[in-house]
């Protein structure tokens, strides 16, 4: 475990939170503009140059809305639930390495380098489920309760596929430490392993999309279904915190996808011929890969219709679970018998 002194870790954690929240703000605009372009129209382009100030306008509007507390709501839990969601979403990014050790002006480009990195991220996103079902329960309303139950059932079902897909990578890399997984170099493994890993990647991508409640799995947000699910009785800042949690959750998912599979912060080695050390630049390559995955999230949202809840659960338990299990089995078999 390579870690910086404690106070540097605090500074990096604070910086990371600020960066993630800023990124969330601009993700809302980028998503709306991209969705617009996918649908043959412009997205928002009035406030500021090409809607650069749109998040500020949205923030001002949200803050000025009436911040209600539903009567009969369990006040403590009602206030706590969105806080849990956003905290877990922000915390999940802590274990992800953004570059080789010592490359960020002499500091390490990660907040924490945990030996149980992958497990930590799954644990924290699992804690995020508390935010969802406590939110629905505390609102003291039928719609919210049903919505939150559906949402939590969806998330814990897809965690199954998520975990099994990661198993394939873990078998290849041999460690849970994210930094060592990236350094082990998924690109360089024997080609016999590629089918298993490709299958694992596919099932991981789909499970991650379902985990963060993203289209086509975003039934909790669909207004035709249960109004807005667990979000129904929330307004103003508390609702904004839930939206933040959803968008911010996209980022560790995309980051985890790029870290576990296509090689994290490493760039293809042939780029070292252009500028020496280019394949080892911190942050840039990770952000580029995350950008590709987030673009794909938005692309999926623009293309596919939502899955109905029973279709969603059936898909998670029957199809995805089998694919993920298959990928783990294939990878395991190849490692034992071939490589």
């Amino acid at each position, binding site marked *: 475990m390579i870690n910086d002194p404690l106070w540097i870790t605090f500074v990096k954690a604070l910086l990371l939170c600020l960066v993630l929240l800023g990124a969330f703000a601009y993700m809302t605009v980028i998503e709306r503009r*991209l969705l*617009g*372009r*996918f*649908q*043959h*129209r*412009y997205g928002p382009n009035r406030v500021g140059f090409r809607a650069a100030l749109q998040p500020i306008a949205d923030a001002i509007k949200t803050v000025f809305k009436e911040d209600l507390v539903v009567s009969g709501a369990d006040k403590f839990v009602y206030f706590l639930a969105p806080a849990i969601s956003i905290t877990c979403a922000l915390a999940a990014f802590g274990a992800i390495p953004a570059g080789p050790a010592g490359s960020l002006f002499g500091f390490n480009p990660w907040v924490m380098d945990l030996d149980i990195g992958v497990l930590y991220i799954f644990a924290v996103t699992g804690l995020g489920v508390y935010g969802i079902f406590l939110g629905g329960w505390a609102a003291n309303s039928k719609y919210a309760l049903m919505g939150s139950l559906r949402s939590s059932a969806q998330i814990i079902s897809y965690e199954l596929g998520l975990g099994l897909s990661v198993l394939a990578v873990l078998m290849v890399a041999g460690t849970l430490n994210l930094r060592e997984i990236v350094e082990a170099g998924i690109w360089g493994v024997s080609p016999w392993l590629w089918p298993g890993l490709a299958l694992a990647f596919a099932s991981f991508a789909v499970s991650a999309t379902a985990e963060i409640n993203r289209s086509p799995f975003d039934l909790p947000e669909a207004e035709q279904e249960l109004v807005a699910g667990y979000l129904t009785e929330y307004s103003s800042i508390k609702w904004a915190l839930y939206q933040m949690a959803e968008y911010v959750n996209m980022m560790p998912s995309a980051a985890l996808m790029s870290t576990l599979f296509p090689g994290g912060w490493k760039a293809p080695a042939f780029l070292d011929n252009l500028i020496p050390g280019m394949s080892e630049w911190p942050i840039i390559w990770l952000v580029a890969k995350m950008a590709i995955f987030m673009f794909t999230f938005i*692309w*999926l949202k*623009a*293309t*596919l219709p939502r899955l109905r809840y029973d279709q969603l659960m059936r898909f998670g338990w029957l199809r995805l679970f089998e694919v993920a299990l298959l990928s783990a089995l294939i990878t395991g078999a190849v490692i034992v018998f071939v490589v």
Partner: protein
Amino acid sequence: MSVIDIAKGMGVTLGHLFKKPVTVSYPEQKVQLKARFRGRHHLLRHPDTGLEKCIGCSLCAAACPSYAIYVEAAENDPANPVSAGERYAKIYEINMLRCIFCGFCEEACPTGAVVLGHEFELADYRYQDFVYGKEDMLVGVKGSPWQRREAAAKGTEVVLGFEAEHRPELEGVDY
């Protein structure tokens, strides 16, 4: 939905990403309207004599499905005729908030006096400003009462936010 179908769908949306959007950025770009677009009414005049075409027969008011038109006729003074027939419309009012822009009045008119033009920027603030009289609809009046009020207050000309194809029934109307 198999993976192939999903991939094809995603290819379609990706293709749309690289096409130019169809949005017309309205105030900066002008809307392109077709010839028979039904907008604000115009009360036309005969091109040669300059007399009004409306003879106050009230067929438009009878045809209107929303009862939006009010017509009061009066005898033409032979010395100063207003219209080309025996009567003219002394009061001709259309309540634009009742009007549904169906064009039945235009179809019912025997002389082709009331014709629906292309103006659609008719928003205003008070209900009473929406009852358009003859002075708001006679040919030669450009823009809605709101547009004319704003232009007069600023000292500019009324700028219409659209470009329309030519329609021969709209005699004397040029945008």
